[in-house]
């Protein structure tokens, strides 16, 4: 529709527009990048922040939630950064490489650039790349997700990030942790571009530490998985952010490739993990998992669109949500099968466990199918802890609290175990226990 209704901007929308005017001169990038930023902010001016009347945001009204928008974070001080990194460690002593993004910008000095180079991985700065000739491409290359309000917001403000290129055939000896840090309060807009060359394998851990204060976090990952390549990416949306925490994945999956991801959300005031997966080559597979925990007044949203544009691809989506307090869980998943994408096999399951009287779950598993020779299915359940099971455990002498913990852990672990990345299983289950003990 071409009806344009003049918007009464919310405080947050005004803040964002003002912020753009103030900062646009010193945001990184070429003239073409600046034009993209202008176009993105125009989208905000015309449509406002995504709200409940936009179908994709029906249950996660960002416009209503975001009361204000804090200025962008300033450059991190090295001593603050080092102190946070030495004190906060999500994956314990797991052997891994590290790439550091601090207050929105890539920090080469603290990243294992040289060691990774030896394994066939080049890591460079996105803020530098944006200034180059192909800078604009970094923001427009993936076609899916471009209309999304959160992605547009990211484009308008992107400060920096990492560009990671895994050479053809490389098979890294250990996983890579891409750690995003806040050393001071302020908003962050980060974009990471990751490409896994033909036949190469990469395991990525995406974490966040620090405190953005009243600043929102908006991070976009753009993955290109070339033919025969495999990417497994574990994303932890944890830690303290008192405002919106927005994560987007845009994955382009080539032929005979594998994309595997697990999005882990624990205790965020407003978290949205949205993923756009696009198959461009045949005989590929995507396995997408979600483990969500929310309590108090939290809202946790896992949104997913899998586009089967070519034949002979499989996708499996498995999402688990546990809700306590007055929290709200959202799962929106859609499998699209384009005409001629025959022999598609898509299977989606979403299950929610409600621990309190006032928690709410909204499940919206969708199928959109235009090819006939397909097998697609989805399932959704929601309910509470099985009282019979609970009684059984207690009858065996297990105290009620412990029995509940056990059952919740068992419920969430199903997704973690099917994700089947041994390196992280233990760490994730530990985070589940932390949440259960402390939320």
């Amino acid at each position, binding site marked *: 529709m071409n009806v344009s209704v003049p918007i009464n901007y919310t405080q947050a929308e005004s803040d964002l527009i003002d912020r753009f005017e103030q900062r646009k001169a010193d945001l990184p990038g070429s003239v073409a990048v600046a034009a993209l930023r202008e176009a993105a902010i125009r989208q905000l001016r015309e449509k406002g922040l995504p709200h409940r009347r936009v179908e994709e945001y029906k249950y996660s009204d960002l416009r209503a939630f975001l009361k204000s928008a804090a200025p962008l974070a300033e450059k991190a001080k090295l001593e603050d950064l080092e102190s946070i990194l030495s004190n906060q460690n999500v994956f314990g002593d797991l052997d891994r490489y590290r790439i550091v993004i601090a207050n929105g910008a890539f920090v080469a000095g603290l990243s294992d650039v040289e060691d990774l180079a030896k394994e066939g991985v080049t890591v460079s700065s996105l803020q530098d790349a944006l200034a180059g000739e192909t800078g604009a491409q970094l923001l427009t290359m993936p076609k899916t997700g471009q209309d999304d309000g959160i992605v547009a917001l990211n484009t308008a403000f992107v400060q920096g990030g990492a560009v990671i290129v895994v050479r053809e055939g490389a098979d890294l000896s250990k996983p890579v942790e891409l750690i995003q840090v806040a050393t001071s309060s302020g908003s962050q807009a980060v974009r990471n571009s990751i490409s896994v060359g033909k036949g190469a394998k990469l395991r990525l851990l995406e974490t966040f530490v620090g405190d953005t204060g009243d600043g929102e976090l908006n991070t976009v990952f753009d993955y290109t998985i070339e033919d025969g390549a495999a990417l497994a990416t574990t994303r932890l949306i944890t830690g303290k952010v008192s405002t919106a925490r927005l994560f987007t994945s845009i994955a382009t999956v080539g032929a005979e490739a594998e994309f595997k991801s697990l999005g882990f959300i624990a205790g965020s005031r407003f978290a949205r993990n949205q993923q756009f997966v696009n198959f461009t080559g045949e005989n590929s597979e995507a396995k997408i998992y979600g483990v969500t925990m929310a309590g108090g007044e939290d809202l946790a949203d896992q949104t997913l669109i899998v586009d089967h544009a070519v034949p002979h691809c499989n996708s499996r989506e498995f999402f688990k949500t546990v809700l306590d307090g007055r929290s709200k869980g959202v799962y929106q998943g859609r499998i699209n099968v384009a005409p001629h994408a025959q022999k598609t096999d898509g299977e989606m399951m979403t299950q929610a466990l409600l621990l309190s009287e006032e928690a709410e779950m909204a499940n*919206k598993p969708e199928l959109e199918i235009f090819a006939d020779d397909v097998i697609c299915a989805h399932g959704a359940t929601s309910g509470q802890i099985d009282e019979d099971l609970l009684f059984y455990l207690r009858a065996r002498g297990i105290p009620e609290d412990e029995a509940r913990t056990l059952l919740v852990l068992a419920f969430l672990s199903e997704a973690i175990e099917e994700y089947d990345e041994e390196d992280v299983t233990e760490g994730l289950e530990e985070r589940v226990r932390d949440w259960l003990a402390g939320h």
Partner: protein
Amino acid sequence: MPAVQETIDKVKAIDVDQYKYGFVTDIESEKGAKGLSEETVRFLSAKKSEPEWMTEWRLDALRRFQQMEEPTWARVSYPKIDFDDLYYWAAPKSVEGPKSLDEVDPELLETYAKLGIPLAEQEILAGVEPKNRVAVDAVFDSVSVVTTFKEELKKAGVIFCSISEALREYPDLVKKYLGSVVPVTDNFYATLNSAVFSDGSFVYVPEGVRCPMELSTYFRINEQNTGQFERTLIIADKGSYVSYLEGCTAPQRDENQLHAAVVELVALEDAEIKYSTVQNWFPGDKDGKGGIYNFVTKRGDCRGKNSKISWTQVETGSAITWKYPSCILRGENSRGEFYSIAVSNGHQQIDSGTKMIHLGKNTSSRVISKGISAGKSENTYRGLISAHRKASNARNFTQCDSLLIGQDCGAHTVPYIESKNASAQFEHEATTSKISDDQMFYCLQRGLSEEEAVALIVNGFVKDVIQQLPMEFAVEAQKLISISLEGSVG
């Protein structure tokens, strides 16, 4: 329930043309002025000698309608409807209102005979067990032309008449319940209907009465450029039971005809309403020309404890179907059911499903939806299951399956499942597949032709829903599904 053999034979005897009801009845008719205006509404209301409050009610709806925008969320596309280019009133000239059978124009009776409706009482009486009789209210364009078995129903205390008659004879009942389930401003088409509804059926089953026969309405659109806007209101008082059947047909025409009905059901304590529909409006020709635009609001309110409302629908016709028969489960222990078969072929677009709104404690619902898409059609299931804060122990089970025949059609599933109560247990399953090559080959090896094999497998696919239909409808429904899928293979 045993079948009325006559009905079955009649259905069997009907020649399976692509669209068997595509004849036009040549009958003189009276039309109101074209266009949607206060004048149209007043004319219509006057024509029906409605009480003043009813006229005001309609005018209020019209004013609200003029402020509303046509919804765009459904997966259907069609050229914009010009509401000022339609007639809102058309009636066969010889009939001013429902009369006894003897006075009805024989041409009309002929039409309904062609449709296979056992309209004439004597015809039905012949050789049929009394308990299997069906009382029929026949609606032709804008008016109800005849209602059968009225006297006999009256003896049981059941009121079954056209809504126009009910407005005259039982204004208090109508006033109490009309718009109480589907409010005037509920949605674009319901509001339009509220302003201009022409006729429809009214049923009231008093406390403790089990309606002695099936009640049925047959709707037929005959006139050109005429919208049909019927309004049905069924009230089942405490502890009563009624089963209601609805059938729809229209002649084959090049232009699209608009149909925007509203059906409201109210079930009080311990009451049960079973509402079955076989919708076979003209679906348009093989190039997608013509056909009915069917925008229908159907909603049932389980108002009392232990009440139950069950919707069963077989949707084979219409160019566009936009329809979500729903249940508001307000009373404790109340139950809602939705059984649906939606078959689309040619250029048909179906966006249909249900809403089960759990408000009361221990409410339960069950949704079984079977979608079959063929040709170049689009078939969408759209459903909402929601448990509100107080709906402790609410239960829902949903199964929605889609079957694709051919590679130019689409099948879509859009469920919304919202739980605001921890003790609510919801289960939802959906699958999409095609008829397997192995099943086809097996049937062919046993000597079935491709079309026979498809019909057999599809009938198996929809069996769970067919079983919910009264026998007379079940046979017709199976036949209709086969006809609708003709030419979809090979």
